[in-house]
């Protein structure tokens, strides 16, 4: 390793009620690809926000190339050669690439010069991008390129990347890694935030592991197994979900020739979807976010109605039935968005238990609500799914993401579904809770239910699904058995590199 670029000493930042970072210290060398690893809520984001000048530390110091470094705002951080690509893009759909980049500059050069510079930089780093294309037409991977190029134009010494691969297909990830390796070879240090362990093993030179705001370990990812890193992250031995061998029954849910427009202007229409899932089977549906996942869930939950024959539950056409009728028949769903869709934020857990449980759990009679029965059901969910909360009277929004997710999944699983459809069941959930949710899904399938799991986490799908299909621009690929499926094949099913190419340099 060469000289130290940035060294962090005892950074501490506390928010009311929670210490986000406590005495965090580590060093990043020039040209080093340094991973920052940790579960959700481990304090990764707060830490990089301090480095980028968005948050001021309570105590502790940083030194950049030997000089004290305390950026009061992101502009100062950028002036010192620190750039950041955020997880959520901040781009204007209606403007073109060059205009978007110009917007983020202090003194943008004339548009023609800027376009030329964008072309130069993009080609040098293997990220071809036409500066005059409208951002609204770009895929998620291409939008990320815009953000990266915006950073590279500043000629950064340290590039911070926050969960960059969550929106990419495996092929797109490979292209990105090529760029990052090239940058690193030229001396740019990269601080890479992720919880995807295999990626970190493939890319990073060094990893710092955070847990509950503290540094709990450092390692060299290439010499450490993913399991060891995961256990360092979680702090306990991790339980891998176990799959019991099971018999598949008849077809439980059958979707054929289903097309549906999206209710939202920015949504993706579903185009001619065919799928069948059998009793006892877990069908995994992958794909980059925004390719029709929400719409597929809505079509199955009954929020979007379709021709009756397009969706059949055990041979019975249900396409024109609403959510309540479908629940009565045993088709239960859990949407991705926990607050506001799967649960009402300001309502108590008891009320949220009632939200989907009223029919199957018999929580109403003649339209009158049985509050005590609803509370008992809420308590049962809290107990069986280890939801950490003061009690069923707590408002849903007061729960952490992981705990609310356990509640939402538990609510459906405990209603003994015939078919369960879940979207992003472990999104933003810590590793141990994620393992518990996956286990619950597998147990449910083992008991004879059919499960459709929509997820962007390919590792998760490989772990629990029997067959895999991918959504790409509203179309569903032919499902294939997960066993023996390679990452390349999965990537191609997800749409390959979405028309992106690698510039050969």
């Amino acid at each position, binding site marked *: 390793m060469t000289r130290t670029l940035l060294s962090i000493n005892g950074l501490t930042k506390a928010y009311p009620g929670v210490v986000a970072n406590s005495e965090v210290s580590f060093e990043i060398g020039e040209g080093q690809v340094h991973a920052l690893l940790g579960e959700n809520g481990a304090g990764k984001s707060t830490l990089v926000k301090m480095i980028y000048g968005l948050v001021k530390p309570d105590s502790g110091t940083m030194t950049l190339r030997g000089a004290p470094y305390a950026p009061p705002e992101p502009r100062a951080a950028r002036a010192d050669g620190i750039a950041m690509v955020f997880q959520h893009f901040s781009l204007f759909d209606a403007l073109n690439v060059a205009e978007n980049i110009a917007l983020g500059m202090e003194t943008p050069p004339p548009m023609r010069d800027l376009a030329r510079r964008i072309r130069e930089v993009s080609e040098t780093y293997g990220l071809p991008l036409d500066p005059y294309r409208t951002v609204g037409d770009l895929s998620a991977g291409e939008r990320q390129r815009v953000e990266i190029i915006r950073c590279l134009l500043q000629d950064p010494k340290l590039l911070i990347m926050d969960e960059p691969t969550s929106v990419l297909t495996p092929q797109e990830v490979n292209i990105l890694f090529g760029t990052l390796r090239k940058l690193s070879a030229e001396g740019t240090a990269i601080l890479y935030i992720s919880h995807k362990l295999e990626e970190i093993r493939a890319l990073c030179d060094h990893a710092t592991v955070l847990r509950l705001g503290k540094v709990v370990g450092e390692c060299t990812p290439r010499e450490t197994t993913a399991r060891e890193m995961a256990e360092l992250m979680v702090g306990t031995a991790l339980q891998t979900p176990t799959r019991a061998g099971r018999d598949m029954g008849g077809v439980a849910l059958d979707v054929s020739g289903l097309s549906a427009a999206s209710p939202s202007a920015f949504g993706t229409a579903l185009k001619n979807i065919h799928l069948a899932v059998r009793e006892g089977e877990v069908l995994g549906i992958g794909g980059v976010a925004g390719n029709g996942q929400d719409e597929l869930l809505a079509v199955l939950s009954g*929020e979007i109605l379709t021709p009756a024959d397009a969706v059949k539950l055990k041979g019975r056409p249900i396409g024109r039935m609403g*959510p309540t009728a479908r629940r009565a028949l045993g088709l239960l769903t859990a*949407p991705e968005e926990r607050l506001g*869709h799967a*649960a009402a*934020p300001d*309502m108590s857990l008891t009320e949220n238990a009632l939200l989907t449980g009223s029919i199957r759990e018999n929580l109403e009679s003649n*339209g009158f*609500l049985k509050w005590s029965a609803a509370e008992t059901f809420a308590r049962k969910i809290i107990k069986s799914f280890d939801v950490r909360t003061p009690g069923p009277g*707590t408002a849903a929004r007061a729960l952490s993401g992981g705990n609310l997710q356990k509640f939402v999944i538990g609510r459906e699983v405990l209603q003994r579904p015939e078919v369960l459809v879940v979207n992003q069941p472990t999104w933003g959930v810590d590793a141990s809770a994620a393992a518990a949710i996956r286990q619950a899904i597998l147990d449910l399938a083992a008991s004879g239910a059919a499960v459709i799991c929509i997820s962007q986490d390919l590792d998760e799908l490989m772990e629990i699904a029997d067959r895999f299909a991918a959504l790409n621009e509203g179309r569903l690929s032919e499902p294939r058995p997960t066993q023996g499926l390679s990452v390349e094949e999965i990537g191609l099913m997800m749409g390959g590199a979405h028309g992106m190419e690698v510039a050969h340099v």
Partner: protein
Amino acid sequence: MIVLEKRPQPSRGWSMSTPVLAVLATMVAGGLLFGLLGKNPFLAIETIFWEPLFGEFASYYRPQLLVKAAPLVLIAIGLSLGFKAGIWNIGAEGQYIIGAICGAGVGLAFYPLEAWYIFPLMVIGGALGGWAWAMIPALLKVRFGTNEILVSLMLVYVAEKLLASMALGLLKNPQGFGFPGSRNLNDYASATSWISQDVGLHWGMAAALIAVIFAYILLNRHMLGFQIRLTGEAPRAARFAGVNPSRLILFCLGASGMLAGLAGLFEVAGPSGQITIDFNANYGFTAIIVAFLGRLHPIGILLAGLLMALTYIGGDIAQGNLGLPAAAVQVFQGMLLFFLLAFDLLTNYRIRLKTREVA
């Protein structure tokens, strides 16, 4: 620097105490206003809040309180159902007028027959009239996605024109010497809503009380009430739960129209007595304030209706005794809603003083 911080849970304590705080703040600001107008602020506040309840002529004012509060509570209960679900019926005033016209029309059609069934038929007529007037914005919203706020509000003005036409034409008293206005229903024993005019009790008060109880049960014990609250708090979750939005719109607008129509009927057959050009007294708009002042909660609305009636009657007394301008009293009532909404923020947010971070 003052920073607003969202509370993890809505604060129960603040939710209960904001109406009280709003009333106190209104007293202070109102007193200031009256002071600037050259009146004795303490006397003015005392006249508005004390005089009607415990003053010299309290025995006269107290029944008046119920007469004023009954239509306010009745209308506000209906509005609160829709408001809870995010369905904004602003046109209760119009539904109130149409309810009164229909109810009075039914009664006058039977004149001079005396029979026990006439008043019940008038009640049904009033309810149906208000309901039908509210169905116009409801159906337009369900079928064409129109904005119920605009449509229901505009229909108030249509209803006012209809009222004038009725008072001058169809329902005009044939023996009224050509003066506009219908026969006085107080002189028609089968069609009056007074239970006892001496005590100042009429059926509208009973109906308001029943509506409060009914709404309480609906919202707390019934699936439909749960769906109303769910739709207001998280529309997407409501859809996911299986709520049919169109049905909910029809129910909420229909119910609020019906209650407003009933309020109109009880008013025309009781305290007002006849259909006149200016029969409506802004109860439909004031009920919006009452609904919010009562936190959209049935019991709260009952108390808020009584409080609002108090400011009405107290305001009248203050106008008479102290020569306060009518507009000042209206500003005073408006302040109440203003302060309530302002303090409401504290239910969901806490205020924190933060020293500015020096760059």
